């Protein structure tokens, strides 16, 4: 049997996951409205324009993390519903390619979600930012999303075959992504100019996000196969 290259298998897996989303519209019809509702609820809870503008970056990333839990659960629910993940492993498909493909599909979905959340913060909380600040927010989103995609796929795979995975995944995942929450929030604060912060203050945090992304991408590529096999 011919064996495709790792890149072409990863592309096939990513394309398949995005097709699943395109066909089911779960992100569009359920996750995005959930994220928007979280942002609105924060606005009701805080009910002060000054505070909202100051804490907007943290709220954007908290809403991203909560929504990511749903997207990761969904990403592996489609794999386990009819034994597809097992079938991939049984067929000898390269686990690093499965990891890369699923992570890329998750990243694409998270990026779309984050763009919507930042736009919601601008409209709902009255956040204002310069063009340079916007550029930094975009870089922050990309760096944070690569890390979240990698760690989300790794822990999603770990929890996929476990009883009670719906409640286990948040317990496993949220502590691990705390550095992303902190780094992305600080970098976004600099981009938004929240509390008088300067754009230049965001770059060290973006470096932290890049380091996190590199580490978990590498760990995920190696560990995903053994974790799924278990």
């Amino acid at each position: 049997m011919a064996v495709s290259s790792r890149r072409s298998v990863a592309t096939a897996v990513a394309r398949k996951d995005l097709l699943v989303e395109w066909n089911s519209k779960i992100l569009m019809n359920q996750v995005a409205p959930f994220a928007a509702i979280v942002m609105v609820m924060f606005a009701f809870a805080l009910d002060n324009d000054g505070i909202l503008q100051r804490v907007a970056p943290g709220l954007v990333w908290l809403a991203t993390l909560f929504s990511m839990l749903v997207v990761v659960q969904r990403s592996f629910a489609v794999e386990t519903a009819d034994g597809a993940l097992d079938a991939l492993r049984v067929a000898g498909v390269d686990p690093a390619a499965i990891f890369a493909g699923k992570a890329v599909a998750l990243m694409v979905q998270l990026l779309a979600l984050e763009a919507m959340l930042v736009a919601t913060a601008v409209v709902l909380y009255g956040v204002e930012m310069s063009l340079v600040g916007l550029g930094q927010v975009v870089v922050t989103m990309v760096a944070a999303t690569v890390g979240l995609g990698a760690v989300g796929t790794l822990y999603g795979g770990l929890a996929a075959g476990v009883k009670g995975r719906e409640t286990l995944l948040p317990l496993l995942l949220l502590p691990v992504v705390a550095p992303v929450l902190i780094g992305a929030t600080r970098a976004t604060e600099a981009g938004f100019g929240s509390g008088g912060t300067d754009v230049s203050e965001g770059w060290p945090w973006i470096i932290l996000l890049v380091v996190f992304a590199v580490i978990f991408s590498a760990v995920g590529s190696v560990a995903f196969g053994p974790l799924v096999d278990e």
Partner: protein
Amino acid sequence: METVINLSHVVAVLGGFPALAGIDFSVQRGEIVLLQGPNGAGKTSLLRVCAGLLPIERGSGTVLGIDIATQREDIRSRVGFLGHANGLYLDLTVRQNVNFWAATVGADDAEIASAMSRMKVDGRLADVKASQLSAGQRRRTALASLIVRRAEIWLLDEPHAGLDAAGRDEIDGILRDAVASGATVVLASHESERASGLANRIVTVDGGGAR
């Protein structure tokens, strides 16, 4: 005739218990071999050893000339194992499912069209989501995926399970076609009467051994 599966005194352990207790088992290319025996006899474990999924503790063997003790990953990419689940993505259409499996091995459009036609999941059915298919249609879609993966040995665990009489007849026809096209089939089935009419050879598995 070429021997494609050759196991000698194989012992395999599952959950701390010996699932296979020194089994000898061989299959020639182009055969349809039926594994029969009571629940827990070791039929599924034998299929999983042949698929490179279950490691062996003792004994030796080859599948398509590949050592089952040291090269299990290499076996996986050349055989097709279909268990109780079909391994389909329920939100994808039949065509999208088969296309995906084809992409994992670089199969071309002609191979995809041929597999879907052979399994009778082409035409209007091709654009139906897997979640909306009957049990038999899902099974046929899964088998189309095995064909595009160019599996040389089909290892099937209860392929008739959950199907009505017409669906079972279809599966039998598909397996005969597969063998005519050069594949080898090993199936475990509780439907001994039906499957014995299909098989060239019947192997009884009991207590982790074969006779």
